[in-house]
């Protein structure tokens, strides 16, 4: 592990992307538009938020880079932010939870989430010392099912009709999980190619 310490902004490079902690100045029009886009928010079973810049900045400020992280995903080739990755860490239980949003719709279906998640799983099971990583899918988000499956997560349970659906009715929550030993085994078997340049750095 390089220079990063809990509480400091985090930066991790994959082959094609830079993930770095966002600060309130990163609440650009593009970033805000992702929160206010109904199609994007459907993936979180949420309606468009109708956030102002101040509300977006407040959201970013809620993350402390210790127990909670909100990382922008930047294309290394252009420097453009294309989405974000959030991570919540329980150091006592050594379990982390994460979610991802690719805001640039032209990049949907290009497996960017896999590249980003592989790097972050290496970070969570490596420097962060996690023993398990969880994922939670609200509603029948089939692309998310795909991503968890390819990464080696298991479907551990379903919370039936656990929350209101934003379009009415109630929706299930699907709980996914992967253990550190499963992740390491998958890496050794070549099922999840280790991302290149997935090194955490301080900023």
């Amino acid at each position, binding site marked *: 592990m390089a220079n990063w310490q809990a509480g400091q902004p985090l930066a991790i490079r994959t082959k094609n992307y830079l993930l770095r902690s966002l600060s309130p100045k990163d609440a650009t029009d593009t970033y805000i538009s992702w929160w206010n886009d109904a199609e994007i928010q459907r993936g979180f079973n949420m309606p468009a938020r109708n956030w102002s810049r101040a509300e977006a900045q407040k959201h970013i400020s809620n993350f402390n880079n210790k127990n909670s992280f909100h990382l922008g995903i930047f294309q290394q080739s252009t420097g453009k932010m294309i989405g974000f990755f959030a991570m919540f860490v329980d150091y006592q239980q050594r379990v982390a939870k994460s979610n991802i949003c690719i805001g640039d719709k032209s990049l949907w279906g290009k*497996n960017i989430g896999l590249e980003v998640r592989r790097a972050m799983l290496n970070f969570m099971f490596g420097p962060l010392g996690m023993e398990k990583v969880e994922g939670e899918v609200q509603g029948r988000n089939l692309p998310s099912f795909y991503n968890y499956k390819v990464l080696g997560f298991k479907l551990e349970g379903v919370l039936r009709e656990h929350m209101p659906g934003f379009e009415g009715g109630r929706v299930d929550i699907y709980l996914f999980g992967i253990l550190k030993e499963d992740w390491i085994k998958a890496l050794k078997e070549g099922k999840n190619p280790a991302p290149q340049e997935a090194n955490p750095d301080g900023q």
Partner: protein
Amino acid sequence: MVNNEHMTKAKTLLAEATRRGRDEIPDNSSITNFDGWDSLSHMRLILAMEENLGKELAPEVIMEIETLEDIAKYLS
């Protein structure tokens, strides 16, 4: 039991889901070795299977589908 008809149907659905020609779908296609089988393709595939079967697939079943043969198995 999976037969040739199921395999043919599976290949057709996977080709449509991945926006490829049927001839471009390898017989040993899997979620990890066929780069056309991405997250959006997977969503289209599952929805097409459900339409074909006339019922929604259980999440446990969806998590088991990772090869062309799996698709055929659940269409049989």
